[in-house]
Structure formats: structure tokens, C-alpha cells
């Protein structure tokens, strides 16, 4: 059986060809070869439905929100707030006031650290994160530790790229105040047992934060079922615009937290003697937000819902299995991140070919991947590599594109033969 036939035998559970028609950017040539976009963990592409929503907002409805009585402002406000409702349903939050729009997952974590953390942490209090965190779930806590005297504790990982849960249990204690863990690793693809982590953290009365930047596009999230205290994700990895993201927080926590930034839209009344803050969620949305971005994110959620996250998860799982099997057959290729539970992220290194050289050669073949440390330098340190090459798949990728990836890797081997 030829290699192409293997791809033919996989029966996609999605109508990918139809889906691809919604993504104009995919239909172009790079270096005279059809583009194969496999850098979805860095940012995803946008369907026409999202692009049209941005277009409509700027062409027909552009106005500031929550402050005008004129028609355009009312339209913009309605669309903005409807998007909040879409986000609430998407992650099954209890109410709209628990959905705060921010610039992205990074800003969400910084907000929690600076508002919740600075108010509640004392010297010697402990914050637990893990080796596989993105820098955005490390540095805000290091800053907080410098400011408060709190101490950072790290859950180690094993050589498959999984959290060592026994070590987590050992780290938990009366000093644990915050447990902030990535739902799905951007560098390794590992799906972490967040339910277990949240439950155990709560037994020690710690506040739990889940970084869902990679989870939101790949898996259904139910914050009420998880019972996490905070959940953050970015719009641009979820087929929405850049510069917009979501912070979910439980009402009682958000209510007790001081505002992070001050300005317009986050107040009820301002005088030089006293300022009254607005109610949730506006207390945390100072200044004119990324209105178009929020509306675009709402459109992206509609789009994902129309396909269905369960169908997406199933299809991407097939893609990952296929890609893993093919990649494992490439001589000199070593996968970094072989957890039992993974999403469609394939990190790898090649014997005697540096990831950057792989990246350049793959680009030459029209295949876009990410190379580098993926903002997870402690992961690189754990695996004792300076960088990895990473192919990350979305539901619009095809089995044929996996074949193109593998062929391009073989090309890299030829160049370095």
C-alpha cells in the first residue's frame, strides 16, 4: 500500500473540504507550493464568518459602547453584550457578570495575580504552578512573589511530558493559596487532569486558575463542572481576532477583588473625594475595549459551535494519531511530548538538524510550523533541548497535509544528509 493510500483510508468525520472554503487564507501558495498551515497553537486562522463580523461592525455599527443613546452605540453595545452571552454559554459559566473581556489569556492571568493575588497573599504563602507552564503563567507569579513575599512551587513533569501528580499532592499544604495550571500544554500537547487538580487544591482551600489558551479551541470546557475559580483563554487561538480574550471568575471572588485598571466604563460615579466602581463585569473593563474583537470572538464561537467541539475533538484526534504514526517512522525523529492524553500538537526534534533549520526548510516546502522554545523554556530545559519543531493541527487541516509535513521533513533530512 502506498503512503497516500493510508491517508485515503482515514474517513474524516468532518466535511473538511467544505470547512476549508470558509478560510480564505488557506488557499494560497507559499514559495510556489500550496500553503500547509500547521502553526495553529501559535495562532489560528479566521473563517469568513469572523472576518465578516469585523467588517460589518466597522462598516455599519462602529460606535462606543455603554455610553451613547444613539442608534449606533446601542447596536454596538447589544452586539458586544451578546458576545458576552455567547462566551458564557461556550464555557457554561453561571452568569454574564463572570465573563470579563481582556486582551488575551496573558492579561487574564496578570489581572488575577495583581488584583486577587496582591490583595490576598502574604509572605510565605505558596503558589503552585508546573514545569509545563507557558511563560504567561510563570512570570506574572514571579512578579507577584517579588511584590508579596509569596513563594512559587513547581509540579515537575515526567519524560512523557505529563505532570507528576504524586509530587503535586506533596506540594499541597496549608500555605497553598493559589494553584494555577495549564489545561493543555502548548509545547507538548498534554491534556492535564485539571478536574483532579482543582478538587485537590480545593481540599486545601486554594484558589484554582486554569490557563485554557490551548484548550478552548480543542475541547469542550464547562467551568461549573470543573468548579475552577478562574479560567482564561485567548480569542485568536479560537479562530477569533487577536487582542481579545476572556477571564472567567466566580462572582464572589470577582466581587471581592479590587479593580486592576482604573478609567472610563469601570465606574458608577467619580468625584475627587470618592469613586464608586461599576458592578461586574464592567469593574474590570476600564477604557474602550476591543469592541470589534469581542464581536468577532462571538462570531468565532458561533462558528465552532456550528461544527461542534465533539466532532472537532474526534477529528483532530484522528489527525494526531495519523501524524504521530507517520512521524514515528521518520529516521532520527524524536517526539517531545508523548503523554497518554494529548491534543493535536506534535513537537519534535531531529538528530543533527536544529529546529530552526527544519523550520526554514519546511517553509520552503510551503509548510508553516513553529520552531523555538514556544515560550516554555523550563520544558526545553527538562528535555535538555534548546528548541523543538512543532506542528499543531486544527480542524481545517487534512490528512494530505500531514503527508506534506512528513515529505518536507524528509526533504530536510536530504539537505542535511
Amino acid at each position: 500500500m502506498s503512503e497516500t493510500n493510508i491517508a485515503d483510508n482515514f474517513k474524516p468525520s468532518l466535511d473538511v473540504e467544505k470547512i476549508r472554503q470558509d478560510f480564505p487564507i488557506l488557499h494560497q501558495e507559499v514559495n510556489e507550493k500550496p500553503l500547509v498551515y500547521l502553526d495553529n497553537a501559535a495562532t489560528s486562522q479566521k473563517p469568513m464568518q469572523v472576518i465578516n463580523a469585523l467588517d460589518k461592525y466597522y462598516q455599519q455599527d462602529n460606535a462606543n459602547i455603554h455610553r451613547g443613546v444613539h442608534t449606533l452605540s446601542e447596536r454596538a453595545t447589544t452586539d458586544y453584550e451578546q458576545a458576552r452571552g455567547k462566551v458564557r454559554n461556550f464555557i457554561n459559566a453561571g452568569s454574564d457578570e463572570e465573563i470579563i473581556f481582556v486582551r488575551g489569556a496573558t492579561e487574564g492571568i496578570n489581572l488575577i495575580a495583581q488584583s486577587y493575588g496582591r490583595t490576598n497573599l502574604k509572605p510565605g504563602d505558596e503558589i503552585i504552578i508546573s514545569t509545563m507552564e507557558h511563560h504567561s503563567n510563570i512570570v506574572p507569579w514571579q512578579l507577584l512573589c517579588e511584590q508579596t513575599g509569596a513563594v512559587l512551587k513547581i509540579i515537575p513533569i515526567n519524560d512523557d511530558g505529563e505532570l507528576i501528580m504524586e509530587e503535586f499532592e506533596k506540594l499541597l499544604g496549608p500555605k497553598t493559596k493559589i494553584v494555577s495550571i495549564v489545561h493543555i500544554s502548548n509545547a507538548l500537547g498534554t491534556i492535564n487532569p485539571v478536574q483532579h487538580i482543582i478538587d485537590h487544591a480545593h481540599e486545601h482551600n486554594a484558589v484554582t486558575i486554569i490557563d485554557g489558551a490551548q484548550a478552548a479551541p480543542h475541547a469542550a470546557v464547562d467551568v461549573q463542572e470543573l468548579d475552577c475559580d478562574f479560567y482564561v483563554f485567548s480569542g485568536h487561538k479560537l479562530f477569533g481576532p487577536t487582542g481579545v480574550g476572556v477571564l472567567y471568575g466566580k462572582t464572589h471572588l470577582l466581587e471581592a477583588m479590587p479593580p486592576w485598571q482604573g478609567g472610563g466604563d469601570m465606574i458608577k460615579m467619580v468625584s475627587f473625594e470618592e469613586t464608586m466602581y461599576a458592578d461586574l463585569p464592567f469593574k474590570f473593563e476600564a477604557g474602550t475595549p476591543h469592541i470589534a474583537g469581542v464581536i468577532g470572538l462571538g462570531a468565532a464561537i458561533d462558528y465552532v459551535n456550528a461544527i461542534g467541539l465533539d466532532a472537532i475533538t474526534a477529528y483532530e484526534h484522528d489527525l494526531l494519531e495519523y501524524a504521530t504514526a507517520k512521524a514515528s517512522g521518520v529516521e532520527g525523529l524524536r517526539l517531545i511530548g508523548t503523554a497518554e492524553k494529548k491534543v493535536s500538537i506534535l513537537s519534535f526534534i531531529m538528530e543533527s538538524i536544529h529546529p530552526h533549520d527544519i523550520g526554514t526548510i519546511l517553509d520552503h516546502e510551503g509548510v508553516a510550523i513553529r520552531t523555538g522554545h514556544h515560550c516554555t523554556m523550563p520544558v526545553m530545559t527538562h528535555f535538555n533541548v534548546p528548541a523543538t519543531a512543532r506542528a499543531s493541527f486544527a480542524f481545517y487541516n487534512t490528512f494530505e497535509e500531514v503527508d506534506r509535513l512528513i515529505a518536507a521533513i524528509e526533504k530536510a533530512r536530504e539537505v542535511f544528509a
Partner: protein
Amino acid sequence: MIFDLKDLYQEVIIDHNRSPRNFGKLENPTRVAEGYNPLCGDKLNLYLATENDVITDVSFDGSGCAISVASASLMTDSLKGKTIKEAEQLFESFHGLIMEEENPGPEEMQSLGKLAALAGVKEYPARVKCATLCWHTLNSALEGESCPATTE
């Protein structure tokens, strides 16, 4: 226009990547500098022995992509016996080679020697930093800076 991969990965580069010249620590360096490219994680240590402003010996170690390793290997080869002033001039010529659209004139090209193999890098802007890391490290070694050189 499409560029041939072989313009970037010339045989000289593949060869110097596979067997880098002057790789390892010098026994008695007079100047040492550390280079780091935060974008790719390339790390490079440069060891120089100078006598009366002449580079008598030079070596490097560290890790990086083929372009950065080959560039460091070629650089160290071409620096031996040069005065510090000549080394600085060479950096200028090399910079022109990989940054300017037009290649340097024949005289400069001749002075570049094997370094000319890196000319293809100019078509890959993301890789220019890989090729210049060792030269920035050389600069900081010559200037006696104590902090690591970076390409930023």
C-alpha cells in the same frame, strides 16, 4: 522569485555545521564573551587570545542551528592572525554581505573569502540573526563587555 534551498544550505555551511572548526575552549584566552539569541535559544561562547592587538587564536563552543554554528566556525577560521581593526572591518563587510541587497564589490568579496558562503542568508530575514550572533559576540569580546551579547 523562489530561492533554492542550496543557496542557503551550501555545502560549505553543511560541512562547517557537521564538523565545526575551532570548537572548544581555549586554554588561555585573553578575552571571553557569551552570546545569546533569546528568540531561538542559540548560545555561543567565544574565546579569544590576543597579543599586541593581533588575534593569535580563537575558538567557540555552544549550541545553535546550522547557520549559527557554520557562521561561528567560518568566522573563527577567518579571524586568526587578523588585527582587531581588520576583524572589525571584516564584520562590516560581512554585515554588508548578508544585509545589503547588492553583494559587496570584488575586493571586499575577496577579503570575505569563505564567509561569502553565507550570502544566501539575506533571502531569509528571520535567519540573519543566526548568522550574526557570533559577530556580535566577537564585538562584545573585543569591547570587553561583561554582559552576554544578544542579537536583539
